[in-house]
């Protein structure tokens, strides 16, 4: 620690602090323009000049100068004020000063400082910039005339996002922030640059001119897309969510969001939102009142209850809040006497509810997000972890680049993570993850690299026996990897002092189920890399509340039908009533034809959703539900973080929250009084679910809590499924596109501007062999059907493997993929 004096205040700060940090700790504000706490110090703007007595009154930038013992600092003297005024005058010299039409006004650092330092006149004169404004790209308007050259956009895109879309170009007065060949911006559109730009040079196009910053009501919440659980602030005006607002003090991610979180909020006030309940009369869905709809649903459910509950089933999305999921489970367990409930097609959460449950004795990740930065080596299963959970991808980027954490990736494709420094990517044949992970474990045993604790864990001998078949030499050929490469990877993993495995889950990844989770668990247990800081496995649940759904047991726990069995039940008539809350199985569950047939067959289908989705269109009763912005509650995200969402606007139209709908149904079917509010249900969760014990909604506050986890380890041998190889065909793997999450992001304008439709991605070699070019429409044919998709050609896919994202309703990939890890397809023009 270092002691110094700033403006007569004594401060003690760590020795790597800068004067700026020290002043902040002492509550003294030093004006900044180019500094950001997330980025490396830059020292470009000279706004933060201070005087240090020991340096004979010379003015030095506070943001780049480290503190030294006994320093005496002055942050405001007449000289400093003069110097800062000069900085502002020079910045304003070529600045357009079009604040009346600039969206940054009110939240603009330049404007605020100009006001604060009373810069009314400019001693200098010059012509204004005449840079062309980039109106071309879909989401970010770039007006370089307003740029003050703080470099934050270029730095954040490089340091945190690791994309590198911007750089300074030209020199002197001509200098500006440029893009590739100075063309329109074409990047990931995460919007990080927009959020840190201190002026109005970078603005959000979807929000352009929509409202003034000061007129927005700012409501803190949590993103409702993926399981990362990023905290965000909604900008609300006149009962509409107009934008997301950057707050650098929110969450582990310091306010960083991905493109979905930042630009995908429009689904909340989409004009496609359902406004009233619908009831099918004479074959068509017609508007109805809530009374009519709920009476009908309650009557049908009472009928199902009296028939014994076996013939009723429920599918619920892991996007609902914990409290809603709890009520859904209660509706089935206590209200209907049925255990036929599931979410995410069953397989997308099996890694947690079956895999982790058997191997670790818990349904949660035995690691938290903070372990990423605390680790020495990250082993990422599939580069897709970046696409599924982009902000966790930023964490990986930061760890690898700033903390020099080693990165190893096993994946069926290359991808962005593979480009990080020190990343070593092992591209294996699709569907071979389990065999590969087993081979790693085998090497560790064969080379005696296991931890001393391993032999004491139940099932060690059985595992040893089972792994004998997975010697690298045996699996190398099927995995498409070199035996030595497998051995090296195993050694790297075993020898790292701390190592964390990251496994993304989701509807697009049918191979990431129970077996893979267990193979990975065995690996961590063998090497003793679990239950310590920087170690363990981080299961990346796909949806915002995937972890909550696992915690609350929203899957069959007493021998009931899982998602797949529910579909079978609907088809063979044993399930007659089906409630679907927020799920869209027609698009997201495997084998579209089968799902459609099942939903057509079921006698009474109730769908609760925001939109008339492909699934809702088949319903007998559709109940309009609320989005995350219209309700309160909690989500539990990756790494067991439980966080609160807050109601920002009134429900759209006549929509009611799933909480209200389910609360009413539970009460009418169980005959008990409805819960008073969300807090009452949360209290019951805290009382009944061990991990949540002792928590209360009020105490969660803005930051939330990390749930505790205890591990009861056990080795469970995981067999690798044999992937039949069809020669002459291409292996189709499904997954997530960076711009989408599930099927809801299709209703956000932002994601649809960038990625409006499904596609099939081919490697260069395959594209050349098929003479397919980027943008061509190709026919993709599998055993179960064929599809027309746009082709995307790149370097990501290895030869013989093609990729298609699953989010889209038209030409949905589940009409050719039936839930296998690999689907064999042929592609023609």
């Amino acid at each position, binding site marked *: 620690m270092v002691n110094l004096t700033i403006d007569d205040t004594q401060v003690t700060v760590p020795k790597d602090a800068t004067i700026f940090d020290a002043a902040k700790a002492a509550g003294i504000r030093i004006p900044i323009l180019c500094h950001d706490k997330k980025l490396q110090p830059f020292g470009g703007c000279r706004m933060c000049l201070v005087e240090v007595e020991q340096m004979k009154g010379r003015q030095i930038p506070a943001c780049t100068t480290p503190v030294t013992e006994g320093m005496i600092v002055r942050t405001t003297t007449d000289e400093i004020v003069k110097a800062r005024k000069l900085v502002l005058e020079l910045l304003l010299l070529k600045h357009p000063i079009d604040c*009346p*039409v600039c969206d940054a006004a009110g939240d603009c650092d330049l404007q605020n400082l100009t006001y604060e330092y009373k810069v009314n006149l400019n001693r200098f004169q010059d012509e204004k910039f005449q840079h062309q*404004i980039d109106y071309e790209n879909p989401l970010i308007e770039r007006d370089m005339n307003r740029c003050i050259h703080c470099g934050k956009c270029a730095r954040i895109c490089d340091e945190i996002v690791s994309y590198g879309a911007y750089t300074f170009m030209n020199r002197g007065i001509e200098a500006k922030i440029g893009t590739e060949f100075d063309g329109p911006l074409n990047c990931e559109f995460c919007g990080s640059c927009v959020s840190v730009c201190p002026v109005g040079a970078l603005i959000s196009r979807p929000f*352009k001119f929509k*409202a*003034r910053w*000061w*007129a927005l009501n700012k409501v803190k919440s949590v993103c409702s897309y993926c399981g990362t659980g990023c905290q965000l602030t909604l900008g609300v005006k006149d009962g509409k969510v107009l934008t997301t607002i950057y707050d650098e003090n929110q969450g582990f991610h310091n306010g960083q969001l991905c493109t979905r979180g930042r630009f995908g909020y429009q689904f909340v006030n989409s004009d496609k939102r359902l406004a009233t309940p619908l009831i099918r009369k004479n074959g068509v869905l017609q508007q109805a009142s809530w009374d009519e709809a709920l009476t009908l649903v309650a009557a049908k459910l009472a009928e199902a209850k009296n028939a014994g509950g076996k013939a009723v089933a429920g599918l619920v999305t892991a996007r609902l809040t914990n409290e809603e999921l709890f009520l859904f489970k209660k509706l089935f367990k206590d209200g209907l006497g049925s255990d036929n409930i599931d979410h995410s097609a069953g397989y997308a959460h099996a890694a947690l509810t079956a895999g982790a449950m058997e191997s670790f004795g818990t349904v949660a990740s035995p690691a938290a997000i903070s372990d990423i930065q605390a680790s020495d080596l990250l082993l990422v299963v599939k580069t897709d972890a970046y696409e599924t959970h982009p902000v966790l991808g930023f964490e990986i980027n930061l760890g690898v680049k700033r903390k020099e954490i080693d990165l190893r990736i096993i994946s069926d494709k290359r991808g962005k993570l593979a480009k990080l420094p020190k990343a070593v990517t092992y591209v294996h044949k699709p569907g071979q993850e389990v065999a590969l992970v087993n081979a790693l474990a085998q090497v560790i045993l064969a080379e005696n690299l296991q931890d001393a604790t391993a032999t004491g864990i139940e099932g060690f001998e059985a595992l040893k026996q089972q792994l004998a078949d997975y010697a690298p030499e045996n699996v190398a050929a099927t995995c498409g990897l070199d035996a030595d490469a497998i051995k090296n990877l195993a050694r790297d993993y075993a020898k790292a002092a701390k190592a964390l495995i990251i496994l993304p889950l989701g509807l697009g990844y049918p191979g990431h189920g129970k077996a893979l989770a267990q193979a990975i668990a065995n690996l961590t247990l063998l090497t003793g890399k679990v239950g310590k800081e920087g170690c363990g496995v981080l299961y990346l649940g796909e949806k915002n509340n995937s972890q909550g759904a696992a915690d609350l047991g929203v899957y069959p726990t007493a021998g009931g039908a899982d998602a797949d069995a529910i579909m079978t039940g609907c088809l063979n008539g044993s399930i007659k009533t089906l409630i679907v809350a927020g799920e869209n199985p027609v698009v997201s569950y495997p084998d579209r034809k089968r799902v459609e047939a099942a939903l057509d067959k079921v006698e009474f289908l109730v769908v609760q959703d925001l939109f008339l989705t492909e699934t809702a269109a088949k319903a007998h009763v559709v109940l309009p539900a609320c989005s995350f912005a219209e309700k309160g509650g909690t989500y539990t995200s990756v790494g067991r973080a439980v966080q609160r969402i807050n109601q920002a606007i009134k429900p759209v139209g006549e929509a009611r929250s799933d909480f209200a709908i389910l609360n009413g149904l539970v009460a009418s079917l169980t005959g008990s009084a409805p819960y008073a509010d969300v807090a009452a249900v949360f209290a019951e969760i805290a009382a009944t679910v061990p991990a949540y014990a002792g928590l209360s909604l009020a105490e969660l506050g803005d930051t939330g809590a990390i749930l505790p986890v205890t591990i009861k380890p056990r080795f469970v041998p995981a067999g690798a499924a044999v992937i039949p190889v069809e020669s002459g065909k291409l292996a189709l793997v499904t997954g997530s596109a960076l711009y989408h999450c599930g099927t809801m992001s299709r209703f956000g304008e932002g994601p649809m501007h960038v990625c409006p439709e499904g596609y099939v991605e081919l490697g260069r070699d395959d594209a050349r062999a098929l003479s397919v070019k980027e943008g061509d429409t190709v026919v993709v044919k599998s055993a179960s059907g064929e599809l027309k998709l746009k082709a995307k050609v790149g370097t990501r896919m290895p030869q013989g493997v093609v990729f298609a994202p699953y989010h889209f309703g038209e030409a949905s990939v589940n009409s050719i993929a039936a839930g296998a890890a690999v689907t064999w397809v042929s592609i023609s023009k």
Partner: protein
Amino acid sequence: MIMPLLQGLKITFLHMFKKPVTLQYPKERPVVVPNYRGLHALKVSHEQAKCVACYLCPTVCPAKCITVEAGEDAKHDKYAARYEIDLLRCIFCGYCVEACPVDALKMTQEFELANYKREDFVFVKERLLEKK
């Protein structure tokens, strides 16, 4: 007793020879001073309202009676797609005129604002455009 009465009658009598102060409105029109704060007008320049929809006037308005909605024109510039003043709530303070950074708003000498229906007191953009 009689004197005050006579004095009063004298005043009455003298007034018969003075110029009357009553304005025979509406036959006669008043002279309105130039800085009178009457109905607002949106100034026009180059055949366009000068207003750039900066939202400063609705922000400053103490009666909260101005509604502005910005739009983006073909040249990507900002303009007031909607501009309304609810004159029933307006207190004619003139702050809006003062706040406008582009001098797009003025208050005219127009004071005859009576109307039959409440809706008619809401002046939309077309009604507010300055008449040349």
